[in-house]
């Protein structure tokens, strides 16, 4: 079994239901996110549109975070999820430095690394990840990539040529796919990020979670 995730960006409407569901399910502390939705505005008025891109851990087959972790706190479980053992983590932040997707953060409460685990605890009980359940338009598709009859495998087959991963040049072999995405959504260097121009706040940098 190899669990994977796919987001159909053509369906996502940026409601952030997944983000909130993740926060609640996993008790993610303030100022940190396991999953977030990035808004990018494209075009020039009046020909403009807003794109929405949910961003989470990619559960890579060749995960840099797993490789760099000195104590195997980050580890693969048998269904392909890159999980984290917070009791073992020493908080060296090597994984934070290694992840090309910025998906790992230091939990300010536990002083350990944390990230999306595809809700491994729910999956172990045969439930879907909380973000999948919360999505009102079924833009999140989760399932077994090794099973050709799973929803995610069928979706990938149906949309061949339009399935992308983030930063394929990194060689991480992500198990998180996007359908209908463009360069501006998946490549952080392809959009302008102004200082202090976020919609809901003017924060551009946060102190690292923890005691430093």
């Amino acid at each position, binding site marked *: 079994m190899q669990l994977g995730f796919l987001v159909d960006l053509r369906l996502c409407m940026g409601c952030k239901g997944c983000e909130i569901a993740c926060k609640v399910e996993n008790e993610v502390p303030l100022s940190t*996110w396991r999953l*977030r*939705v*990035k*808004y*990018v*505005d*494209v*075009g*020039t008025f009046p020909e403009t549109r*807003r794109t929405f891109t949910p*961003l989470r851990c990619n559960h890579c087959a060749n995960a*840099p975070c797993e*490789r*760099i*972790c*000195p*104590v*195997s706190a980050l580890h693969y479980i048998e269904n392909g999820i890159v999980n984290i053992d917070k009791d*073992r*983590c*020493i*908080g*060296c*932040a*090597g994984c*934070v*430095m290694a*992840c*090309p*997707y*910025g998906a790992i953060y*230091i939990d300010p409460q536990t002083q*350990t690394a944390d990230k999306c685990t595809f809700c491994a605890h729910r999956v172990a009980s045969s439930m879907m990840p909380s973000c999948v359940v919360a999505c009102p338009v079924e833009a999140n598709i989760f399932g077994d990539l090794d099973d050709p009859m799973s929803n995610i495998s069928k979706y990938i087959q149906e949309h061949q040529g339009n399935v992308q991963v*983030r930063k394929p040049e*990194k060689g991480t072999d992500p198990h998180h796919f996007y359908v209908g995405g463009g*360069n*501006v959504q998946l*490549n*952080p*260097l*392809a*959009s*302008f*990020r*102004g200082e202090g*121009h*976020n*919609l*809901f*706040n003017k*924060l*551009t*940098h*946060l*102190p*690292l979670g*923890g*005691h*430093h």
Partner: protein
Amino acid sequence: MVHETIAATNAIVVLDVPLPGIVWGWIITMNMWAKSIGTGIIFITFFLLKKYPEQTGFIRFPAVVISIIFIHLFLFFTVIDLHQMFRFWHIFFYPHLTSAITIGAWMATGFVGLLFAMAYAIYLKKDEAMYDKYLGWTVFLAIPVTLYTAGLMAESTARELWQMPTESAQMILAALLAGTAAMLLLGGNKFSDAIKKDLGIILGLSAFSAFILYMAEYIFGGMKAEEVAATLDFIKGGEYTIMFWIGQIMAFIVPMVLVWMSIKKESYYLLKIAAVSALVGLWVAKHVWLVIPQLLNMS
């Protein structure tokens, strides 16, 4: 920071989470800087004892003391940078051998053990032969201890600027630079002009080689990877430009010039100034190179 956008798309991030702050900051800079001195002085001690055994015997004890001090500074900064520092022992009891951190921790432990063996040999046993025997093994372990940080930076897949071949060369050069500088300050006027000249040459060549590598990356790095180009913007007119050049000038250019003047005039008092400049500048140069890839947004 925008590199690949085009006017037609005019893509602007309007909502995202704030960027995280610097994850590896001055504590890790201290780690690398202290390690450079701690291993570098062992390399230089080995060289001097091989080439000038009669004249440099007195450095055996102070050299190992300096190495012990700076390696423990390195270990101290390594541990305090951990968010769960009291779990440091997990590295030894739950080791993950693909991690450069694990390998480095084991190598450094062996290195420290050998340093204490050397101190025991020369201070308590007064046995120079035993000291020199341990020194050979210590030099052998000093190589991976010096290099493991380069491995760690290379494993940081997110930071395209840090490439293993360059970083490993830079780590060795930093150790030679810092070790020579420390030895010049340690030996003072007790060294003959021939030894000072040799140390000056090592200092100058290390500075020259490291400077060439930095400049090569500065000029050509961005031509191969967009992320590197975006990272280098922080030192090409960006917020770390002045600090970058202060580091380059103090760590490499000033020592090169002073070494050249010393050798030309056959007067070596300037080498101490070169040594101090190299040590201070090395910290600044390392810090800038450590921080700038962390300023880049990953998503």
